[in-house]
Protein backbone atom coordinates (compact mmCIF):
# COMPACT_ATOMS: atom_id res chain seq x y z
CA UNK A 1 0.00 0.00 0.00
CA UNK A 2 2.82 2.34 0.95
CA UNK A 3 4.12 2.30 -2.61
CA UNK A 4 0.95 4.11 -3.56
CA UNK A 5 1.45 7.01 -1.17
CA UNK A 6 1.79 10.32 -3.00
CA UNK A 7 4.56 12.82 -2.56
CA UNK A 8 2.14 15.24 -0.96
CA UNK A 9 0.93 12.67 1.57
CA UNK A 10 4.44 11.50 2.42
CA UNK A 11 5.67 15.05 2.94
CA UNK A 12 2.67 15.87 5.12
CA UNK A 13 3.20 12.74 7.23
CA UNK A 14 6.90 13.52 7.63
CA UNK A 15 6.00 17.01 8.85
CA UNK A 16 3.46 15.61 11.31
CA UNK A 17 5.95 13.07 12.69
CA UNK A 18 8.67 15.67 13.20
CA UNK A 19 6.18 17.96 14.92
CA UNK A 20 4.93 15.17 17.17
CA UNK A 21 8.40 13.96 18.14
CA UNK A 22 9.54 17.49 18.86
CA UNK A 23 6.54 18.59 20.83
CA UNK A 24 5.51 15.64 22.98
CA UNK A 25 7.15 13.04 25.15
CA UNK A 26 5.91 9.82 23.55
CA UNK A 27 6.72 6.42 25.03
CA UNK A 28 10.07 5.25 23.69
CA UNK A 29 8.50 2.38 21.81
CA UNK A 30 6.11 4.73 20.05
CA UNK A 31 8.83 7.30 19.41
CA UNK A 32 11.05 4.69 17.74
CA UNK A 33 8.14 3.52 15.63
CA UNK A 34 7.42 7.05 14.51
CA UNK A 35 11.07 7.72 13.85
CA UNK A 36 11.19 4.69 11.61
CA UNK A 37 8.08 5.82 9.79
CA UNK A 38 9.56 9.30 9.38
CA UNK A 39 12.70 7.87 7.82
CA UNK A 40 10.47 5.87 5.48
CA UNK A 41 8.50 8.99 4.48
CA UNK A 42 11.72 10.91 3.90
CA UNK A 43 12.94 8.09 1.70
CA UNK A 44 9.70 8.04 -0.31
CA UNK A 45 9.87 11.81 -0.90
CA UNK A 46 13.51 11.70 -1.92
CA UNK A 47 12.89 8.74 -4.17
CA UNK A 48 10.05 10.51 -5.97
CA UNK A 49 12.21 13.59 -6.45
CA UNK A 50 15.14 11.46 -7.57
CA UNK A 51 13.14 9.84 -10.31
CA UNK A 52 13.11 12.56 -12.91
CA UNK A 53 10.59 11.34 -15.38
CA UNK A 54 8.72 13.95 -17.30
CA UNK A 55 6.11 12.28 -19.43
CA UNK A 56 4.62 14.31 -22.25
CA UNK A 57 1.74 12.91 -24.26
CA UNK A 58 -0.55 14.20 -26.92
CA UNK A 59 -4.21 13.44 -27.16
CA UNK A 60 -5.36 12.12 -30.52
CA UNK A 61 -9.01 11.97 -31.44
CA UNK A 62 -9.95 9.31 -33.96
CA UNK A 63 -12.66 9.94 -36.52
CA UNK A 64 -14.99 7.63 -34.58
CA UNK A 65 -14.55 9.84 -31.51
CA UNK A 66 -12.30 7.52 -29.49
CA UNK A 67 -9.33 9.07 -27.73
CA UNK A 68 -5.71 7.86 -27.84
CA UNK A 69 -2.58 9.14 -26.17
CA UNK A 70 0.70 9.18 -28.04
CA UNK A 71 4.12 10.45 -26.94
CA UNK A 72 4.45 14.10 -27.85
CA UNK A 73 7.39 15.28 -29.92
CA UNK A 74 7.42 19.04 -30.29
CA UNK A 75 8.07 20.18 -33.84
CA UNK A 76 10.81 22.62 -34.62
CA UNK A 77 10.13 26.35 -34.26
CA UNK A 78 7.16 27.28 -36.38
CA UNK A 79 5.27 30.10 -34.75
Amino acid at each position, binding site marked *: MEERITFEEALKR*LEEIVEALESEELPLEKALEMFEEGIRMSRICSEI*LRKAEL*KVEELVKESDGTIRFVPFRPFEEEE
Partner: protein
Amino acid sequence: MRLIYTVSQLTKALKEIITSIGEVWVEGEVSNFRQPYTGHVYFTLKDEGSQIQCVIFKPLSLKMSFLPKDGMKVLVHGKLTVYEKGGYYEIRVDRVIPYGLGELQMALEALKRKLAAEGLFDAAHKKPLPKFPRKIGVVTSATGAAIRDIIRVISRRFPHVHILLHPVTVQGENAAKEIAEAIDTLNRIGDIDLLIVGRGGGSIEDLWAFNEEIVARSIFRSRIPVISAVGHEIDYTIADLVADVRAPTPSAAAEIAVPNAESLKEQINHLTARLIRTMRMRLEVEKERLEKLAAKVSPERGLDMVREMQQRVDVCYMRLTDLMRVRVEREKGRVNGLTLRLRGVSPLRAIRERWAELNELAGRLRSAASAIISLRRAELQKLAARLDALSPLAVLKRGYALCTDLKGRPVTRPDQVEVGDEVLVRFHEGGLRCLVTGKSDGGEDNV
Protein backbone atom coordinates in the same frame (compact mmCIF):
# COMPACT_ATOMS: atom_id res chain seq x y z
CA MET B 1 -38.94 88.26 -26.19
CA ARG B 2 -39.88 87.10 -22.78
CA LEU B 3 -36.38 86.34 -21.47
CA ILE B 4 -32.91 87.64 -22.12
CA TYR B 5 -30.01 85.31 -21.24
CA THR B 6 -26.53 86.39 -20.36
CA VAL B 7 -23.87 84.44 -22.28
CA SER B 8 -23.01 82.49 -19.14
CA GLN B 9 -26.64 81.69 -18.45
CA LEU B 10 -27.15 80.40 -21.96
CA THR B 11 -23.97 78.33 -21.79
CA LYS B 12 -25.07 76.85 -18.48
CA ALA B 13 -28.46 76.01 -19.92
CA LEU B 14 -26.84 74.38 -22.96
CA LYS B 15 -24.48 72.48 -20.69
CA GLU B 16 -27.41 70.94 -18.85
CA ILE B 17 -28.95 69.78 -22.11
CA ILE B 18 -25.68 68.46 -23.50
CA THR B 19 -24.50 66.64 -20.34
CA SER B 20 -27.89 64.95 -20.13
CA ILE B 21 -26.92 63.03 -23.29
CA GLY B 22 -24.32 61.31 -21.08
CA GLU B 23 -21.86 58.69 -22.31
CA VAL B 24 -21.16 58.19 -26.01
CA TRP B 25 -19.02 56.08 -28.33
CA VAL B 26 -17.75 58.18 -31.26
CA GLU B 27 -15.69 57.18 -34.26
CA GLY B 28 -13.46 59.55 -36.19
CA GLU B 29 -10.02 60.68 -37.21
CA VAL B 30 -7.64 62.32 -34.79
CA SER B 31 -6.19 65.75 -35.56
CA ASN B 32 -4.55 68.59 -33.67
CA PHE B 33 -3.30 66.20 -30.94
CA ARG B 34 -1.53 68.08 -28.12
CA GLN B 35 -0.35 67.19 -24.63
CA PRO B 36 0.84 70.28 -22.75
CA TYR B 37 2.93 70.19 -19.56
CA THR B 38 -0.24 69.81 -17.45
CA GLY B 39 -0.46 66.22 -18.65
CA HIS B 40 -3.98 66.52 -20.02
CA VAL B 41 -4.45 65.45 -23.62
CA TYR B 42 -6.41 67.44 -26.19
CA PHE B 43 -7.36 66.50 -29.72
CA THR B 44 -10.03 67.00 -32.33
CA LEU B 45 -12.05 64.11 -33.68
CA LYS B 46 -13.38 64.70 -37.18
CA ASP B 47 -14.93 63.12 -40.24
CA GLU B 48 -15.78 64.53 -43.68
CA GLY B 49 -18.67 66.56 -42.37
CA SER B 50 -17.85 67.77 -38.87
CA GLN B 51 -15.56 67.78 -35.84
CA ILE B 52 -15.68 67.64 -32.06
CA GLN B 53 -13.21 68.57 -29.32
CA CYS B 54 -11.89 65.81 -27.06
CA VAL B 55 -10.00 65.93 -23.79
CA ILE B 56 -8.39 63.20 -21.68
CA PHE B 57 -7.63 64.46 -18.19
CA LYS B 58 -4.68 63.48 -16.09
CA PRO B 59 -4.15 60.96 -14.46
CA LEU B 60 -6.23 58.90 -16.89
CA SER B 61 -4.13 60.20 -19.80
CA LEU B 62 -0.99 58.85 -18.12
CA LYS B 63 -2.44 55.42 -17.44
CA MET B 64 -3.74 54.69 -20.93
CA SER B 65 -1.95 51.93 -22.76
CA PHE B 66 -2.96 53.46 -26.07
CA LEU B 67 -2.90 57.16 -26.98
CA PRO B 68 -4.03 58.39 -30.39
CA LYS B 69 -1.88 60.27 -32.86
CA ASP B 70 -2.80 62.73 -35.60
CA GLY B 71 -4.32 60.99 -38.61
CA MET B 72 -5.36 57.87 -36.68
CA LYS B 73 -8.85 56.49 -36.94
CA VAL B 74 -10.12 55.73 -33.48
CA LEU B 75 -13.17 54.93 -31.43
CA VAL B 76 -13.49 56.99 -28.28
CA HIS B 77 -15.73 56.60 -25.27
CA GLY B 78 -16.58 59.39 -22.87
CA LYS B 79 -19.05 61.91 -21.48
CA LEU B 80 -20.40 64.81 -23.44
CA THR B 81 -19.97 68.13 -21.67
CA VAL B 82 -19.48 71.83 -22.23
CA TYR B 83 -16.33 73.80 -21.59
CA GLU B 84 -18.05 76.87 -20.24
CA LYS B 85 -15.19 79.31 -20.45
CA GLY B 86 -14.51 78.51 -24.09
CA GLY B 87 -18.16 78.16 -24.91
CA TYR B 88 -17.81 74.90 -26.80
CA TYR B 89 -18.85 71.34 -26.21
CA GLU B 90 -16.39 68.48 -25.92
CA ILE B 91 -16.04 64.82 -25.01
CA ARG B 92 -14.26 63.93 -21.79
CA VAL B 93 -12.68 60.76 -23.10
CA ASP B 94 -12.02 57.74 -20.87
CA ARG B 95 -11.25 55.08 -23.50
CA VAL B 96 -9.56 55.19 -26.89
CA ILE B 97 -9.54 52.15 -29.14
CA PRO B 98 -7.87 51.88 -32.56
CA TYR B 99 -10.45 51.93 -35.33
CA GLY B 100 -11.47 48.63 -36.81
CA LEU B 101 -11.36 46.89 -33.49
CA GLY B 102 -14.05 49.27 -32.44
CA GLU B 103 -17.01 47.00 -32.99
CA LEU B 104 -15.33 43.90 -31.69
CA GLN B 105 -14.22 45.81 -28.66
CA MET B 106 -17.73 47.05 -27.98
CA ALA B 107 -19.06 43.51 -28.28
CA LEU B 108 -16.32 42.42 -25.91
CA GLU B 109 -17.27 45.08 -23.39
CA ALA B 110 -20.87 43.97 -23.59
CA LEU B 111 -19.91 40.31 -23.12
CA LYS B 112 -17.68 41.20 -20.19
CA ARG B 113 -20.53 43.03 -18.50
CA LYS B 114 -22.90 40.14 -19.14
CA LEU B 115 -20.54 37.48 -17.78
CA ALA B 116 -19.59 39.66 -14.83
CA ALA B 117 -23.28 40.08 -14.01
CA GLU B 118 -23.66 36.30 -14.10
CA GLY B 119 -20.79 35.99 -11.63
CA LEU B 120 -18.33 34.17 -13.91
CA PHE B 121 -15.44 36.34 -12.71
CA ASP B 122 -16.30 36.16 -9.00
CA ALA B 123 -13.49 35.31 -6.63
CA ALA B 124 -15.85 32.92 -4.84
CA HIS B 125 -15.73 30.59 -7.86
CA LYS B 126 -11.92 30.53 -8.10
CA LYS B 127 -10.64 27.04 -7.34
CA PRO B 128 -7.34 26.61 -5.49
CA LEU B 129 -4.52 25.07 -7.53
CA PRO B 130 -3.12 21.69 -6.42
CA LYS B 131 0.21 22.02 -4.59
CA PHE B 132 1.75 19.00 -6.30
CA PRO B 133 -0.08 18.30 -9.55
CA ARG B 134 0.60 14.90 -11.06
CA LYS B 135 -1.07 15.25 -14.43
CA ILE B 136 -1.37 18.59 -16.19
CA GLY B 137 -3.60 19.05 -19.22
CA VAL B 138 -2.49 21.70 -21.69
CA VAL B 139 -4.82 23.21 -24.27
CA THR B 140 -2.81 24.97 -26.94
CA SER B 141 -1.33 24.50 -30.39
CA ALA B 142 0.95 21.48 -30.89
CA THR B 143 3.22 23.58 -33.09
CA GLY B 144 3.40 26.83 -31.15
CA ALA B 145 6.01 28.15 -28.76
CA ALA B 146 3.60 27.84 -25.82
CA ILE B 147 3.79 24.05 -25.40
CA ARG B 148 7.57 24.07 -25.82
CA ASP B 149 7.92 26.81 -23.20
CA ILE B 150 5.69 24.90 -20.79
CA ILE B 151 7.65 21.65 -21.25
CA ARG B 152 10.95 23.49 -20.86
CA VAL B 153 9.96 25.21 -17.60
CA ILE B 154 8.38 22.11 -16.07
CA SER B 155 11.32 19.88 -16.95
CA ARG B 156 13.62 22.38 -15.25
CA ARG B 157 11.52 23.00 -12.13
CA PHE B 158 9.69 19.77 -11.40
CA PRO B 159 10.22 16.96 -13.89
CA HIS B 160 7.93 14.58 -12.00
CA VAL B 161 4.65 15.22 -13.74
CA HIS B 162 2.71 13.92 -16.67
CA ILE B 163 1.81 16.53 -19.27
CA LEU B 164 -1.08 15.79 -21.57
CA LEU B 165 -1.39 18.12 -24.54
CA HIS B 166 -4.76 18.52 -26.16
CA PRO B 167 -3.75 20.15 -29.45
CA VAL B 168 -6.08 22.86 -30.76
CA THR B 169 -6.08 25.65 -33.29
CA VAL B 170 -5.55 28.82 -31.30
CA GLN B 171 -6.58 31.34 -33.92
CA GLY B 172 -9.07 31.55 -36.73
CA GLU B 173 -12.67 30.59 -37.06
CA ASN B 174 -12.72 27.25 -35.25
CA ALA B 175 -10.31 28.18 -32.51
CA ALA B 176 -12.82 29.10 -29.80
CA LYS B 177 -14.93 26.00 -30.39
CA GLU B 178 -11.88 23.72 -30.36
CA ILE B 179 -10.53 25.27 -27.19
CA ALA B 180 -13.88 24.99 -25.41
CA GLU B 181 -14.30 21.34 -26.47
CA ALA B 182 -10.75 20.49 -25.44
CA ILE B 183 -11.39 21.82 -21.93
CA ASP B 184 -14.55 19.71 -21.71
CA THR B 185 -12.75 16.61 -23.06
CA LEU B 186 -9.89 16.91 -20.57
CA ASN B 187 -12.42 17.24 -17.77
CA ARG B 188 -13.94 13.93 -18.82
CA ILE B 189 -10.61 12.05 -18.78
CA GLY B 190 -10.72 12.07 -15.01
CA ASP B 191 -7.22 11.98 -13.57
CA ILE B 192 -6.03 15.44 -14.56
CA ASP B 193 -5.18 17.80 -11.68
CA LEU B 194 -4.68 21.08 -13.47
CA LEU B 195 -5.26 22.73 -16.86
CA ILE B 196 -3.19 25.33 -18.66
CA VAL B 197 -5.11 27.03 -21.45
CA GLY B 198 -3.39 29.54 -23.70
CA ARG B 199 -1.02 30.51 -26.45
CA GLY B 200 2.03 32.64 -27.02
CA GLY B 201 1.86 36.36 -27.66
CA GLY B 202 0.07 37.84 -30.61
CA SER B 203 -1.97 40.80 -31.72
CA ILE B 204 -5.32 41.39 -30.15
CA GLU B 205 -7.01 39.76 -33.14
CA ASP B 206 -4.78 36.68 -32.77
CA LEU B 207 -5.92 36.29 -29.20
CA TRP B 208 -9.55 36.68 -30.01
CA ALA B 209 -10.59 33.09 -29.37
CA PHE B 210 -9.79 33.67 -25.72
CA ASN B 211 -12.38 36.43 -25.61
CA GLU B 212 -15.23 34.28 -26.81
CA GLU B 213 -18.16 33.27 -24.72
CA ILE B 214 -17.95 29.50 -25.32
CA VAL B 215 -14.35 29.50 -24.07
CA ALA B 216 -15.33 31.53 -21.01
CA ARG B 217 -18.17 29.13 -20.25
CA SER B 218 -16.07 25.99 -20.66
CA ILE B 219 -13.41 27.42 -18.32
CA PHE B 220 -16.11 28.30 -15.81
CA ARG B 221 -17.59 24.81 -16.13
CA SER B 222 -14.24 23.09 -15.68
CA ARG B 223 -14.08 20.95 -12.55
CA ILE B 224 -10.27 21.03 -12.90
CA PRO B 225 -8.59 24.31 -11.90
CA VAL B 226 -7.54 26.38 -14.92
CA ILE B 227 -4.54 28.65 -15.38
CA SER B 228 -4.98 30.98 -18.34
CA ALA B 229 -1.81 31.72 -20.25
CA VAL B 230 -2.56 34.12 -23.05
CA GLY B 231 0.64 35.87 -24.00
CA HIS B 232 -0.55 39.40 -23.74
CA GLU B 233 0.61 41.56 -20.88
CA ILE B 234 -1.59 44.61 -21.23
CA ASP B 235 -5.23 43.69 -21.62
CA TYR B 236 -6.87 40.80 -19.86
CA THR B 237 -8.84 38.49 -22.11
CA ILE B 238 -12.14 37.13 -20.91
CA ALA B 239 -10.44 33.74 -20.48
CA ASP B 240 -8.05 35.44 -18.04
CA LEU B 241 -10.94 36.84 -16.06
CA VAL B 242 -12.76 33.51 -15.76
CA ALA B 243 -9.67 31.36 -15.12
CA ASP B 244 -8.83 30.39 -11.56
CA VAL B 245 -5.38 31.92 -11.97
CA ARG B 246 -4.14 34.17 -14.74
CA ALA B 247 -0.56 33.95 -15.97
CA PRO B 248 0.88 36.54 -18.35
CA THR B 249 2.66 33.93 -20.51
CA PRO B 250 2.75 30.13 -20.97
CA SER B 251 6.16 30.00 -19.24
CA ALA B 252 4.75 31.90 -16.28
CA ALA B 253 1.80 29.49 -16.19
CA ALA B 254 4.22 26.55 -15.95
CA GLU B 255 6.08 28.29 -13.10
CA ILE B 256 2.81 28.71 -11.23
CA ALA B 257 1.68 25.16 -12.02
CA VAL B 258 4.52 23.20 -10.40
CA PRO B 259 6.63 23.64 -7.27
CA ASN B 260 10.39 23.91 -7.39
CA ALA B 261 11.93 20.47 -6.86
CA GLU B 262 15.15 21.97 -5.50
CA SER B 263 13.43 23.80 -2.66
CA LEU B 264 11.36 20.70 -1.91
CA LYS B 265 14.56 18.69 -1.59
CA GLU B 266 15.85 21.26 0.85
CA GLN B 267 12.65 21.07 2.82
CA ILE B 268 12.87 17.27 3.04
CA ASN B 269 16.53 17.40 4.07
CA HIS B 270 15.66 19.87 6.75
CA LEU B 271 12.77 17.79 8.08
CA THR B 272 14.89 14.64 8.07
CA ALA B 273 17.67 16.38 9.97
CA ARG B 274 15.16 17.56 12.56
CA LEU B 275 13.75 14.04 12.83
CA ILE B 276 17.19 12.54 13.46
CA ARG B 277 18.24 15.28 15.87
CA THR B 278 15.08 14.83 17.91
CA MET B 279 15.54 11.08 18.08
CA ARG B 280 19.17 11.43 19.11
CA MET B 281 18.24 13.79 21.89
CA ARG B 282 15.55 11.40 22.99
CA LEU B 283 18.03 8.51 23.08
CA GLU B 284 20.39 10.63 25.17
CA VAL B 285 17.60 11.21 27.68
CA GLU B 286 16.76 7.50 27.71
CA LYS B 287 20.40 6.67 28.24
CA GLU B 288 20.63 8.88 31.30
CA ARG B 289 17.41 7.47 32.62
CA LEU B 290 18.68 3.93 32.15
CA GLU B 291 21.96 4.68 33.85
CA LYS B 292 20.13 6.07 36.85
CA LEU B 293 17.84 3.08 36.88
CA ALA B 294 20.69 0.62 36.48
CA ALA B 295 22.37 2.20 39.48
CA LYS B 296 19.20 2.00 41.57
CA VAL B 297 17.74 -1.35 40.60
CA SER B 298 19.53 -4.66 40.39
CA PRO B 299 22.45 -4.76 37.95
CA GLU B 300 21.04 -7.68 35.93
CA ARG B 301 17.71 -5.96 35.32
CA GLY B 302 19.53 -2.81 34.24
CA LEU B 303 21.63 -4.75 31.81
CA ASP B 304 18.53 -6.41 30.39
CA MET B 305 16.99 -3.05 29.73
CA VAL B 306 20.10 -1.75 28.05
CA ARG B 307 20.27 -4.85 25.87
CA GLU B 308 16.67 -4.55 24.88
CA MET B 309 17.21 -0.94 23.95
CA GLN B 310 20.31 -1.75 21.95
CA GLN B 311 18.44 -4.45 20.13
CA ARG B 312 15.69 -2.09 19.12
CA VAL B 313 18.19 0.41 17.79
CA ASP B 314 19.89 -2.41 15.89
CA VAL B 315 16.62 -3.54 14.37
CA CYS B 316 15.83 -0.01 13.23
CA TYR B 317 19.25 0.36 11.77
CA MET B 318 19.08 -2.93 9.94
CA ARG B 319 15.72 -2.08 8.46
CA LEU B 320 17.08 1.20 7.25
CA THR B 321 20.11 -0.40 5.64
CA ASP B 322 17.82 -2.95 4.02
CA LEU B 323 15.71 -0.16 2.61
CA MET B 324 18.80 1.56 1.30
CA ARG B 325 20.06 -1.64 -0.25
CA VAL B 326 16.78 -2.11 -2.08
CA ARG B 327 17.04 1.41 -3.36
CA VAL B 328 20.61 0.94 -4.52
CA GLU B 329 19.65 -2.27 -6.35
CA ARG B 330 16.80 -0.52 -8.03
CA GLU B 331 18.96 2.33 -9.13
CA LYS B 332 21.83 0.25 -10.42
CA GLY B 333 22.30 0.65 -14.11
CA ARG B 334 20.48 3.94 -14.19
CA VAL B 335 23.58 5.97 -13.75
CA ASN B 336 23.43 9.15 -15.69
CA GLY B 337 24.64 12.63 -14.93
CA LEU B 338 21.40 13.64 -13.33
CA THR B 339 21.07 10.78 -10.86
CA LEU B 340 24.70 11.24 -9.91
CA ARG B 341 24.09 14.88 -9.18
CA LEU B 342 20.93 14.13 -7.28
CA ARG B 343 22.68 11.49 -5.20
CA GLY B 344 25.23 14.13 -4.24
CA VAL B 345 22.56 16.06 -2.40
CA SER B 346 20.69 13.03 -1.06
CA PRO B 347 19.75 13.18 2.62
CA LEU B 348 20.45 9.45 2.90
CA ARG B 349 24.14 10.11 3.30
CA ALA B 350 23.38 12.31 6.29
CA ILE B 351 21.00 9.68 7.60
CA ARG B 352 23.64 6.99 7.26
CA GLU B 353 26.12 9.13 9.19
CA ARG B 354 23.56 9.89 11.87
CA TRP B 355 22.76 6.22 12.17
CA ALA B 356 26.41 5.41 12.66
CA GLU B 357 26.50 8.01 15.43
CA LEU B 358 23.35 6.60 16.91
CA ASN B 359 24.78 3.13 16.90
CA GLU B 360 27.98 4.32 18.49
CA LEU B 361 25.95 6.10 21.10
CA ALA B 362 24.05 2.93 21.88
CA GLY B 363 27.37 1.06 22.13
CA ARG B 364 28.60 3.61 24.63
CA LEU B 365 25.39 3.29 26.52
CA ARG B 366 25.87 -0.46 26.76
CA SER B 367 29.50 -0.28 27.91
CA ALA B 368 28.65 2.38 30.48
CA ALA B 369 25.99 0.13 31.91
CA SER B 370 28.19 -2.98 31.91
CA ALA B 371 30.90 -1.04 33.71
CA ILE B 372 28.45 -0.27 36.48
CA ILE B 373 27.33 -3.86 36.56
CA SER B 374 30.85 -5.35 36.85
CA LEU B 375 31.64 -2.90 39.62
CA ARG B 376 28.59 -4.11 41.54
CA ARG B 377 29.48 -7.70 40.90
CA ALA B 378 33.03 -7.26 42.24
CA GLU B 379 31.64 -5.66 45.40
CA LEU B 380 29.26 -8.53 45.82
CA GLN B 381 32.05 -11.09 45.48
CA LYS B 382 34.14 -9.31 48.10
CA LEU B 383 31.19 -9.33 50.49
CA ALA B 384 30.53 -13.00 49.85
CA ALA B 385 34.17 -13.82 50.61
CA ARG B 386 33.94 -12.00 53.93
CA LEU B 387 30.74 -13.76 54.82
CA ASP B 388 32.32 -17.04 53.96
CA ALA B 389 35.23 -16.37 56.28
CA LEU B 390 32.80 -15.88 59.16
CA SER B 391 30.83 -19.06 58.59
CA PRO B 392 31.01 -21.62 61.52
CA LEU B 393 31.59 -24.42 59.06
CA ALA B 394 34.85 -22.78 58.09
CA VAL B 395 35.91 -22.76 61.77
CA LEU B 396 35.14 -26.47 62.15
CA LYS B 397 37.22 -27.12 59.07
CA ARG B 398 40.22 -25.84 60.94
CA GLY B 399 39.80 -28.61 63.64
CA TYR B 400 37.41 -27.00 66.14
CA ALA B 401 34.28 -28.78 67.33
CA LEU B 402 30.85 -27.50 68.30
CA CYS B 403 29.10 -28.76 71.40
CA THR B 404 25.31 -28.69 71.77
CA ASP B 405 22.67 -30.26 73.99
CA LEU B 406 20.30 -32.82 72.55
CA LYS B 407 18.00 -30.02 71.45
CA GLY B 408 20.77 -28.42 69.40
CA ARG B 409 21.40 -25.48 71.74
CA PRO B 410 25.10 -24.61 71.85
CA VAL B 411 26.84 -25.56 75.09
CA THR B 412 29.39 -22.88 75.84
CA ARG B 413 29.83 -23.21 79.66
CA PRO B 414 30.12 -26.24 82.01
CA ASP B 415 27.17 -25.11 84.15
CA GLN B 416 24.78 -25.62 81.24
CA VAL B 417 24.94 -29.40 81.72
CA GLU B 418 25.01 -31.87 84.61
CA VAL B 419 27.19 -34.90 85.01
CA GLY B 420 25.28 -37.81 83.46
CA ASP B 421 23.73 -35.61 80.69
CA GLU B 422 24.26 -36.40 77.07
CA VAL B 423 25.69 -33.82 74.65
CA LEU B 424 26.38 -33.71 70.94
CA VAL B 425 29.77 -32.84 69.54
CA ARG B 426 29.89 -31.77 65.90
CA PHE B 427 33.04 -31.83 63.79
CA HIS B 428 33.65 -30.58 60.27
CA GLU B 429 32.30 -33.90 59.08
CA GLY B 430 30.06 -35.98 61.34
CA GLY B 431 29.74 -35.89 65.15
CA LEU B 432 29.62 -37.79 68.45
CA ARG B 433 27.02 -38.38 71.14
CA CYS B 434 28.83 -38.09 74.48
CA LEU B 435 28.05 -38.69 78.14
CA VAL B 436 29.20 -36.03 80.60
CA THR B 437 31.26 -37.75 83.30
CA GLY B 438 32.78 -34.74 84.99
CA LYS B 439 33.13 -30.91 84.93
CA SER B 440 35.91 -28.43 85.30
CA ASP B 441 35.84 -24.64 85.24
CA GLY B 442 39.00 -24.21 83.16
CA GLY B 443 42.45 -25.71 83.06
CA GLU B 444 42.93 -29.29 81.76
CA ASP B 445 40.33 -31.20 79.88
CA ASN B 446 38.82 -33.93 82.00
CA VAL B 447 35.58 -34.53 80.25
